[in-house]
């Protein structure tokens, strides 16, 4: 394979993972320009003229601008980089240009990590680095027509990388991490999934098709019962007839929380979801550092969560929240659009006149869900303008957001303060890693009603319809045919085990490799020595580590000359030359074996026969077709004692 073929292959490998997020025309463009360059190499065509190249560059830049409306930002930047690589191929003349292309290839690899840092991606990109390095060696070698075979080149590149790994590890562990330097482009965090700040029919049932991890939790002691695993997220107050949302956050003031029972301690690692809220088991005793919460106990971080965050909390599953809410909060928890859902409002009014006690109204509603024909389904029929009416008196098929939404609507209409709470419910224990995995498919919505003397009480209307959902998780609650693909497979035992092992590996990867930031670095390093927690300590350790490693590699390279691969014929002949040299007859560099033998025989006529025999064997083996004389040569050399 020629050098150019190697270069094109390594660039193609580097571009491949980006094809998903660059405009569609980028792939064919790269292919076309690559083929053009290949044709140039085979003398079929010429490199484009300057003006054509300039025109192409301008056209492509314009196309990128047209697509993204900017040249900055992650996606536009990557597209620009890919296009420039393809164009540079047509401008590549000097070795310097080649190096620039190779560096751009490396740059694309690092850009790949902006999209995914998963283990398979890391392995793939490592492969790309290996191939690219091999290409680089080829350009520094075979351009002179020398013979390093591709296999040897691959091996050399591998050796270089393997030797670089220990240095990389030292740098990775000890290079002081600093906080972000400047703002990121807007699209830097696109594509993260998670709960949104509003809920309408369909939002959560969409989300639960995603198999993505929401967060992982490691409990210090035993995990709580599945029915108690309510992970509180956004609290939704306002209903506009279609969707629930929180337009203005609840006013400050510490939430009134009275904690009962035992505390459960745990550490939660939240995947980035590009929103501000943090999740906690209902109900945490204290907030994660740097976060705050309104009276409704919706925990908000200072900024959208764009990196994996880890926090330790203690939660109590028994609690009393907001025993005496303010008047404005009470009012807000009763507000409804006046004209919405008249049949539901009428039903609620009947309950209100029948029961003086709000908790009886709650039971009435739950009893309705439980005793009448309501179905729990992931694909409910579409609802009309009066969504709650349509649902309660028409379709009666819905997902948790239908039940929670309808329930809160009925409560408010019946004069019971109520609100919607979204978050996650349940989660699966990973028996191998002993931690709980909560996926997007565990997303859930429930309700809270305010009852005098009890405060805000969690009511989960879904549990009334489908107790399985709460006790055994989503996969058990839905009919088999409705399950998202990833969940149907769970029945297979070995697959489940493999899935759990894989998740454990990913979890460790996330915790130790990807999550290695400022905080983790400090706490990890201070385990070894207190001085390592400061950047000066890190710098000194880093310098020392690098120096020691480099010295080690250098010494190893010096002493470790490969014995393997030494030609036995060459070795035997060398011994012969060394023995003659000890007697003062050394072979000049320009002297061929025959000339040398002649000269040596003249100087030592007594050895002439031996010298002649050895030389004959050697020449025969080296240049002739005798391949069976190796043993004879070695014996002759062994016996040769001048």
């Amino acid at each position, binding site marked *: 394979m020629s050098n150019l073929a190697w270069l094109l292959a390594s660039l193609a490998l580097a571009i491949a993972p980006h094809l998903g997020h660059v405009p569609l025309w980028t792939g064919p463009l790269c292919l076309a320009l690559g083929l053009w360059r290949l044709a140039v190499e085979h003398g079929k065509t010429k490199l484009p003229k300057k003006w054509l190249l300039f025109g192409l560059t301008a056209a492509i830049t314009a196309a990128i601008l047209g697509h993204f409306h900017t040249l900055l930002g992650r996606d536009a930047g990557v597209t620009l980089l890919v296009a420039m690589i393809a164009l540079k191929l047509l401008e590549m003349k000097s070795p310097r240009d080649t190096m620039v292309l190779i560096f751009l290839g490396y*740059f694309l690899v690092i850009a790949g990590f902006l999209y995914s840092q998963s283990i398979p991606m890391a392995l793939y990109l490592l492969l790309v680095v290996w191939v690219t390095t091999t290409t680089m060696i080829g350009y520094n070698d075979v351009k002179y027509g020398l013979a390093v075979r591709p296999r040897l080149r691959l091996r050399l590149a591998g050796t270089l990388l393997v030797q670089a790994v220990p240095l990389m590890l030292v740098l990775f562990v000890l290079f002081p991490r600093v906080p972000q330097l400047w703002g990121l482009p807007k699209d830097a965090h696109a594509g993260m999934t998670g709960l949104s700040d509003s809920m309408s029919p369909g939002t959560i049932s969409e989300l639960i098709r995603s198999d993505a991890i929401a967060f992982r939790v490691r409990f210090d002691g035993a995990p709580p019962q599945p029915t108690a695993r309510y992970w509180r997220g956004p609290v939704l107050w306002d209903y506009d007839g279609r969707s629930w949302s929180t337009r203005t956050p609840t006013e400050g003031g510490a939430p009134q929380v009275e904690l009962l029972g035992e505390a459960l301690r745990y550490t939660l690692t939240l995947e980035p979801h590009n929103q501000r809220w943090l999740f906690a088991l209902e109900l945490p005793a204290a907030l994660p550092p740097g976060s705050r919460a309104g009276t409704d106990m919706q925990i908000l971080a200072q900024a959208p969560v764009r990196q994996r965050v880890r926090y330790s909390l203690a939660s109590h599953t028994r609690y009393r929240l907001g025993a005496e809410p303010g008047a404005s909060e009470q009012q807000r928890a009763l507000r409804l659009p006046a004209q919405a859902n008249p049949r539901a409002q009428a039903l609620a009014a009947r309950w209100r006149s029948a029961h003086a006690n709000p908790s009886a109204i709650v039971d009435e509603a739950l009893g309705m869900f439980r005793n009448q024909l309501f179905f729990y389904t992931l694909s409910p029929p579409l609802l009309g303008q009066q969504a709650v009416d349509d649902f309660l008196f028409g379709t009666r098929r819905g997902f948790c957001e239908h039940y929670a939404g309808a329930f809160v609507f009925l409560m408010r209409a019946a004069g019971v303060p109520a609100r919607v709470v979204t978050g996650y419910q349940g989660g699966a224990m990973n028996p191998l890693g002993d931690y709980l995995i909560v996926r997007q498919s565990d997303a859930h919505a429930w309700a809270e009603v305010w009852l005098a003397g009890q405060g805000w009480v969690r009511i989960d209307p879904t549990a009334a319809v489908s107790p399985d959902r709460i006790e055994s998780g989503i996969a058990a609650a839905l009919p088999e045919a409705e399950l998202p693909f990833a969940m149907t497979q769970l029945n297979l035992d070995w697959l489940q085990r493999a899935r759990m092992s894989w998740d454990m590996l990913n979890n460790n990867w996330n915790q130790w490799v990807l999550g290695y930031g400022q905080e983790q670095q400090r706490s990890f390093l201070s385990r070894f020595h207190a001085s390592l927690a400061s950047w000066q300590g890190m710098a000194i350790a880093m310098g020392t580590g690098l120096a020691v490693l480099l010295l080690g590699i250098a010494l190893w390279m010096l002493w470790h000359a490969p014995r393997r691969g030494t030609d036995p014929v060459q070795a035997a002949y060398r011994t012969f030359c060394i023995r003659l040299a000890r007697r003062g007859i050394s072979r000049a560099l320009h002297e061929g074996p025959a000339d040398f033998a002649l000269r040596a025989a003249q100087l030592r006529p007594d050895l002439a026969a031996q010298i002649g025999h050895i030389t004959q064997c050697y020449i025969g083996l080296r240049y002739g077709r005798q391949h069976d004389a190796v043993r004879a040569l070695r014996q002759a050399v062994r016996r040769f004692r001048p």
Partner: protein
Amino acid sequence: MLAVMLLGSINYANSMGFVLTFLLGSLAVVSILHTWRNLARLTVSAGKSTPVFAGQDARFEVCLNNPGGIARHAIGLRAGDASGEFADVPPHQAACLTFTRRAEKRGLLQAPSFTLFTTFPLGLFRAWTHLDLDMRCLVYPRPAPEALPLPLARAEAGSGRSHGEGQEDFSGLRTWHSGDSLRQVAWKAVAREQGMLTKQFAGEAQQEVWLDWDTLAGPDTEARLSRLTRWVLDADAATQRYGLRLPGCSLAPGMGDEHRRQCLEALARFGL
């Protein structure tokens, strides 16, 4: 480039970005060691240099001997402004590189210092060494451009060229001895395994020319040497026996490559 990568990694707090940046940085550092080892412990020695005429390029050969078990790749040699030449040196073997230098003057030409370098494997760093080996190349005087008839031919037979016909008056064979021109070897006899025999031609013994310094007029030493050089070449080409007489030095008539070499060397070293 690494700096940009590092800044990007810091800003995006991208762990794998850090990993890759550090890996590439370490790769570069490790490649320094490899580049250094690629050149280290090579033994360099001067090779043969073939005499040239003034005005030609003298070629100097540098032999690289690899005593170790690791192949050396793309070792370059550069002298002066000339573009480099490259060679691989397999384990326990030697490879030779040559470089040229324009030979302006007759005499001994001292090789200039040269540089051995390598950028293998990654081309990011360059290991080099300046060397000054005691290498010399003998430079013969520049042959006079125009062909004048050989002096004796002018004096006795009238045409030096006609002696070419003498080669056809074959008189017999004698055993070959060093100094005889390879052109006169009886190759057919060699093929018949009769040993190396030299063809002898009738009249050769009488056709001797003396190339004499004193027969040439003019004060310019170099011009005279040029003329003599030209004659030596012409006489050799005509397979004529010729002797050379210089002030303080005389070479008896003879012929063949060795004789030619001796004459040219005498001319090259004359007065130096």
